[in-house]
């Protein structure tokens, strides 16, 4: 069980602080796979990274993160270390290049485990079993990363990241570099790992709503550093309440098409600068439903069981 409350993370730049995460609160239950989606720069990647390791330029401003009732010291790199890998783990966006190119994979894993006070040899059988689940033979442990295909490397990373049965796994854009067939495999593997209990809860950060529709239990939509809407996957797909979510879904011509770096064709304008974000609802300049009240910031409130929205018109528009 992950509980995040009022988390604020800024990026330091010469031009000032970019408020990439501006007070977000949500929870992910045990056994839940939560999808995290939004346009580029909405803060979803920042959120994913902040839960495990702040990058050099990321600055913790405020808020709390609790995992299984225990507070995570995410602002303190050193204090956070014992939790990483054992409690919180990540399959990074760059999984294809996440392995040291000059070490045999098995040796690298052993060295990492040893550095965390674990014995590689005792975990080896489990490691091999899990590789087999994803269709990899134990041979890969004797190989260098360059000898593996991109998809294979990614699967190795998935197994390694979840080897210690973390409570929370962050999967950061794990499907974006893959072809459709591999995407399906990876998505299936994520569900499988959750079902087998290797991972308790999961946050899947992605551009790809279609993938989320297949594997996520719930979806959290972010916009400009704030939460827009969180609901069970079915609700998000069939009865979204936030105008942004609807436009996001509507702007996808077909399922499977991703809204990557390009601006969304269906939504006019672009997200506001997070250097000095506007007051009130941040979507109001692009919102077809905007009205006078939108100059005040809408609260992120529950409009139905498990369905939270930050929009003044959410009630009126929630269908069902």
């Amino acid at each position: 069980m992950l509980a995040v409350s009022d988390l604020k993370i800024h990026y330091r730049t010469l031009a000032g602080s970019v408020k990439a995460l501006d007070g977000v609160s949500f929870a992910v239950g045990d056994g839940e796979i939560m999808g995290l989606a939004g346009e580029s720069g909405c803060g979803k990647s920042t959120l994913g990274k902040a839960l495990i390791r702040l990058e050099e330029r990321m600055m913790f401003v405020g808020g709390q993160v609790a995992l299984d009732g225990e507070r995570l010291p995410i602002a303190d790199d050193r204090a956070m270390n014992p939790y990483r890998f054992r409690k919180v783990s990540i399959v990074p966006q760059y999984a294809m290049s996440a392995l040291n190119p000059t070490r045999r994979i098995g040796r690298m894993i052993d060295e990492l485990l040893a550095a965390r006070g674990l014995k590689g040899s005792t975990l080896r059988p489990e490691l091999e079993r899990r590789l087999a689940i994803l269709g990899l033979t134990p041979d890969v442990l004797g190989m260098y990363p360059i000898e593996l295909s991109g998809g294979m490397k990614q699967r190795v990373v998935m197994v390694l990241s979840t080897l210690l049965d973390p409570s929370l796994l962050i999967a950061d854009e794990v499907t974006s570099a893959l072809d459709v067939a591999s995407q399906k495999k990876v998505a299936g593997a994520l569900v499988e790992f959750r079902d087998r209990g290797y991972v308790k809860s999961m946050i899947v950060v992605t551009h790809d709503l279609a993938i989320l529709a297949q594997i996520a239990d719930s979806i959290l939509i972010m916009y400009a550093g704030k939460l827009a809407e969180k609901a069970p996957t079915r609700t998000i797909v069939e009865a979204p309440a936030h105008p942004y979510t609807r436009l996001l879904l509507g702007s996808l011509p077909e399922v499977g098409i991703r809204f990557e770096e390009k601006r969304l064709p269906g939504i006019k304008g672009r997200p506001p600068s997070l250097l000095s974000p506007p007051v009130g609802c941040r979507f109001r300049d692009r919102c077809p439903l905007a009205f006078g009240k939108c100059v005040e910031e809408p609260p992120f409130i529950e409009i139905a069981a498990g369905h939270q929205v930050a929009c003044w018109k959410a009630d009126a528009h929630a269908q069902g």
Partner: protein
Amino acid sequence: MTSTTGSAPASPATKTGRNEILYFALRNTKLLIGAFVFMVFLLGAIFGPMLATHEPLTFDAPPGLPPSAGYWFGTTLFGQDVFSQFVHGLRSSFIVGALGGITAAVIGMFVGFFAGYRGGIVDEVLNMLTNVVLVIPTFAVLLVVAAYLSVRGLGTEAMFIGLTSWPWAARAIRAQTFSLTSRDFVGMARLNGESTLRIIFGEIAPNMSSYLVMTFILLFGGAILTAATLDFIGLGPTDSISLGLMMNYSVMNAALQLGMWWWFVPPGLAITAIVGSLYVMNVGLDEVFNPKLRAL
């Protein structure tokens, strides 16, 4: 040894981009310090010879004088004015650096652009050529060439230095071109049926201009160092003075034993300062052009 620069090719140049670069450039201490030192010596090279009251190579002063009001940098063992040798030598160094740097940059760009853009057999052949020139100890080649030239001028020296120092630049430019060639805007130009030359100089070169500037700076500094070394070994210009020749004369004529520091300290110091300022400027420019290094 040249510093490795890891900057990515810049995104298509825009007006705001230029203002932004100027903004960061004016706030980069490395760039400012490097540029300042470089300008001081450049001005010395341009205006120094006008200030010099003596001819650099005539023997019209009392020999072996330490620096004084009459002879700012003292005189040589044979009664030449060191200051006037120094400023004329500075001029030579800048000329060789510029000509040698330009020659090497032109060849490096030509080879790098075509190898990177054309690929295939053109790339294979040019790559082989680059590798051969890269492993040849260029200094040894310069040695033999210069030894057989009975009359040597600054121009020939610079040209030969340029002809031998381009390979690393060609390699770097090839890699950059390679990555740019796969970008959309180059593909568009290709589809539009534009000629290779137009694409290279109209689309590719402008988009790696920052990289080209930095490459030229390093080639410039390298040419100055190589020229000084050649001159010191006695293969410098036969018709003029240079900083390397000053060091050669001083060592050959026992300035060390006689403690005539004013004869050999200024030329070496100037070369170190000029080349050092170029290297530091290069690091500064890398930070300015490369947003990844700049932010914080």
